[in-house]
């Protein structure tokens, strides 16, 4: 039983680390701020959450496991909020998306309002 938990925890730990690594690769390879945000917010949250779940699985202690799970919930709640805040702040401050962006409806709406 303990062995099964350990194998499962090791699997979760490896998956979480792999996702975190992929988030870091994404933040380096993707072309602009807004696409990078996808990598950091999703892969980052899943990676960190999986590692915390692995800790919860292998600690064999109720209080510690509960704390780790609350940590996961906290991570899942805060990551989208901070990504959203950063995206909103950057767009309002005037950081424009990369040229390969096919459509930017915030820009077009602002232009049509300030037009006539």
């Amino acid at each position, binding site marked *: 039983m303990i062995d099964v938990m350990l194998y499962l925890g090791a699997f979760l730990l490896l998956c979480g680390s792999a996702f*975190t690594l992929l988030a870091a690769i994404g933040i*380096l390879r993707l072309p602009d701020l807004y696409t990078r945000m996808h990598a950091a917010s999703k892969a980052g949250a899943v990676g960190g959450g999986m590692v915390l779940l692995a800790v919860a699985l292998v600690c064999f202690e109720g209080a510690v496991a509960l704390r780790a799970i609350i940590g996961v919930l906290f991570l899942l709640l805060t990551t989208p909020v901070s990504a959203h805040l950063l995206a909103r702040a950057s767009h309002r401050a005037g950081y424009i998306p990369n040229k390969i962006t096919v459509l930017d409806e915030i820009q077009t709406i602002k232009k049509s309002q300030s037009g006539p």
Partner: protein
Amino acid sequence: MSGAAFMDLATSIALVMLGVALLLSVIRIVIGPTLPDRVLALDLLTVVALAFVGAIAIRTGLMLYLDIAIALSLLGFLATIAFARYIMTRPAPGAADREKTK
């Protein structure tokens, strides 16, 4: 292979992967090119550090590390919020010129 030995191997591999991730996000912080890019990379850096501390907690069996990890994620969240407000108050370089030509 017993569970404990496998766990030992898994934490080693995980620590290597997380180390590379840490390095990659530091590269993004250094090359920028804009302030939000760096803030985003810092945000990811705290998540990577959280995973790192989690892996260390499993490897050493010291669950006190978990508290550090949770406090770190709190701190990263607050830092990103503060940075977002700061970015909002400062127009992007070049944004003012674009406003004029419109």
